[in-house]
């Protein structure tokens, strides 16, 4: 009898739980809803300054916010909220703003909005954000010239400020001030095509902002994080989402079989193993660094592991980036030459390289590292790598406290699409430098302040020649971004990871 009571109580609890679930279930999506599955949502939710300019933030912020500029897939700076820009003096750029723009809460977009955003970024709180501290640390302020003209100033001459400002989203000034950055993150207001209805860690729901200067073609946008690539593809195959950002190369065939269109966009990133040259050891010798580059069959990796969509890296930047030098041929696969160089450096009997890497950031990155290890073994180099988390990687990177001779590093030119971004990593930093070449360092500094576009491009191309020759990294492949778009979805396009949400609709 007692057992019956226990069983009965258990049944009641479970059934009650089921009933609660039934009553709480949300209404299913309407037909004009675009649903996209992405690997992750921005942890800082709607605060666009606390996130780096790449993924995961960019998949969400591209729908809500706009920056003054954007950089296209050829590295050219294009108009966004600003339509025209020019230098006033060596440390001041003048931006003319678009006049037909409103924020989704009705606030007007003008020079004051730009002023307020930059005022925050240069404030003590703004300097503690990722954008304020690492993307735009050189900003000193903004000054309204007229309703739609604003001057933005920098500490030192900055040749590519318009490109760098592609990372700075403009927020609705009154909403930002009234809410404060913490509350604003739950209800962000921008000028983009969609306005946020709700944000949770597992879902962002948005409605069309019909007054946007980038008026959307769909009524609603839902962004769902599915960290697992297999789940993302299954969600697309079952029609639960319309698009997927980030499928794996080995899923391309399955995606196509389910009538989805796979779109491969070259990512402005070169996957590499950077050498801790400052740390000493075998990699201090340029012949060793070059030998390792010759030893890896990058073409085979690009064709086999990136489904032929990626390319063997010849240098630290990709063809879509300003400063790419097509004359630089890099290091073709030549194991004999690799052995020759190793022998010349005194390592004819081989050597061991220890490295720390992170995986999960790029398509097939785990397999790519395995392939690199296998190729190096053929020339007598033992690569021992340890997989670590980004939280473990970052402090070692910032302080150069690596214990091994190499570490996984992406030469990332996004979002500014300019070679200066990755080159700035390989300079004689006062703290945390892992590579330092005085001649290259001087050229990188010169490129940052040279305001003449043609002269600057020549400097960047010269850097490409020198940095490739001195091989501070084992350049592996130019990476790719893969999207899968379901049947009936129209208008999808993306450049530099910025999805043009306004053009997307479902037929």
């Amino acid at each position: 009898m007692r057992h019956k009571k226990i069983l009965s109580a258990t049944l009641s609890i479970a059934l009650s739980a089921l009933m609660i679930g039934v009553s709480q279930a949300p209404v299913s999506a309407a037909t004009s809803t675009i649903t996209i599955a992405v690997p992750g949502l921005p942890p800082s939710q709607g605060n666009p300054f606390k996130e780096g300019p790449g993924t995961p933030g960019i998949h969400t912020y591209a729908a809500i916010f706009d920056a003054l500029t954007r950089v296209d897939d050829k590295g050219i700076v294009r108009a966004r909220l600003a339509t025209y820009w020019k230098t006033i003096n060596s440390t001041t750029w003048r931006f003319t703003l678009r006049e037909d723009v409103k924020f989704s809460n009705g606030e007007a977009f003008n020079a004051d909005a730009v002023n307020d955003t930059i005022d925050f970024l240069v404030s003590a709180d703004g300097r503690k954000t990722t954008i304020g501290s690492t993307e735009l640390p050189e900003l000193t302020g903004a000054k309204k010239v007229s309703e739609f003209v604003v001057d933005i100033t920098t500490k030192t001459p900055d040749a590519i400020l318009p490109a760098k400002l592609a990372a700075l989203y403009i927020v609705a000034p009154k909403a930002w001030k009234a809410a404060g950055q913490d509350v604003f993150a739950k209800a962000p207001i921008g000028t983009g095509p969609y306005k946020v209805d709700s944000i949770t860690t597992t879902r962002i729901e948005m409605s069309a902002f019909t007054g946007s200067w980038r008026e959307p073609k769909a009524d609603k946008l839902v962004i769902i994080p599915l960290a697992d690539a297999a789940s993302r593809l299954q969600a697309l195959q079952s029609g639960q989402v319309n698009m997927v950002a980030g499928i794996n190369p080995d899923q391309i065939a399955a995606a196509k079989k389910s009538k989805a269109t796979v779109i491969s966009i070259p990512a402005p990133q070169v996957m590499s193993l950077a050498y801790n040259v400052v740390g000493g050891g075998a990699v201090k010798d340029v012949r060793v660094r070059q030998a390792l580059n010759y030893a890896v069959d990058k073409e085979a990796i690009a064709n086999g592991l990136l489904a032929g969509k990626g390319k063997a890296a010849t240098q630290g930047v990709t063809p879509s980036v300003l400063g790419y030098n097509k004359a630089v041929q890099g290091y073709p696969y030549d194991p004999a030459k690799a052995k020759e160089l190793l022998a010349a450096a005194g390592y004819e009997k081989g050597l061991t390289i220890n490295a720390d890497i992170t995986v999960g950031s790029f398509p097939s990155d785990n397999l790519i590292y395995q392939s690199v290890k296998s190729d190096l073994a053929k020339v007598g180099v033992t690569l021992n790598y340890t997989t670590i988390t980004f939280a473990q990687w970052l402090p070692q990177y910032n302080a150069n406290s690596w214990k091994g001779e190499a570490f996984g590093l992406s030469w990332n030119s996004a979002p500014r699409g300019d070679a200066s971004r990755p080159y700035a990593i390989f300079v004689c930093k006062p703290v945390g430098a892992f590579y330092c070449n005085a001649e290259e360092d001087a050229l990188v500094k010169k490129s940052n302040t040279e305001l003449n576009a043609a002269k600057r491009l020549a400097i960047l191309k010269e850097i490409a020649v020198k940095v490739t020759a001195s091989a501070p990294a084992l350049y592996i492949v130019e990476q790719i971004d893969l999207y899968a778009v379901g049947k009936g979805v129209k208008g999808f396009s993306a450049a530099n990871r910025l999805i043009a949400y306004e053009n997307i609709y479902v037929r």
Partner: protein
Amino acid sequence: MKAVGSRLLQLIVLLGTISTTLFLLLRLSGDPAILLAGEGASPETIDAIRADYGFDKSLLQQYLMFIWDIARLDFGRSLVNSQPALGFVLQYLPSTLHLTFLAVFFNSIIAIPAGVWLGAKPTQRRRKVLSTIVSVAQGTPAYVIGLLLIQIFSVWLGWLPSIAGTGTWAWVLPTATLSFALAPNLIRVVAASVEDTTRQDYYRTAKANGAAPNVLLIKHSLPNALLSTTSLLGAQFAFLLSGALITEYIFAWPGLGLILVQSITNLDFPTIQATVFVVAYLVFIVNLIMDQVFRLADPRLRRSQL
């Protein structure tokens, strides 16, 4: 009253020990200020962020502040989304509880009858076949079960959604995944317990006295077998409370496991501490309830001073 006081003391000691261990482990795991500042941030920026969150103080000072704060159930604000950490975690508790109840319930109604059937006559051929299937199923990870169920019911048949928050039916696949993942273990325990009772004197006496097979099973085997079953169910319930991570991962389920992993990835100390605290508290409560269930089910325990 004495028992309540004793339990309360146990709870305080448990939470205090867990919180202290967690505090020390987290400080060894990395510096959240570096993560917050981002790649290539200046040392000045990192120092300013450390000062903001009190990470610049000595470990002892940080610990004393931490203990004082959690004594008032103040875990601080999330380092990444700035929401009060405890409130943020509690938002996700209902969906975790809900999924846990459903999974344990369906696990029970699948596993207990199957286990009893297996244990009653374990040497029968068809039962041996089921026993083999159960052994194989026990080694199948929840991740594989989840993806298989999605492939069959979402992709091929189109019957069920696989993403959380898309309607009532979205509960089915995560619940089924967890139930199927947990069931083999429970089936084996129930079967072994039932089989064990058939070798006991009281069972053989009843059988010799001419008791019908169903009476033997229901009256003599099952009540005794349910003791070990209840114990395992309690453990499974507690395990799910700490987050059915894989299930939450593939179904985008807004539960404590997902929150915990995300906060560990971001070194979001306040959220990690709040999540672990909530889970530890719940597991303690579950254990307390299980103790009472045992006392109800087993007369020997009722007579003891437990």
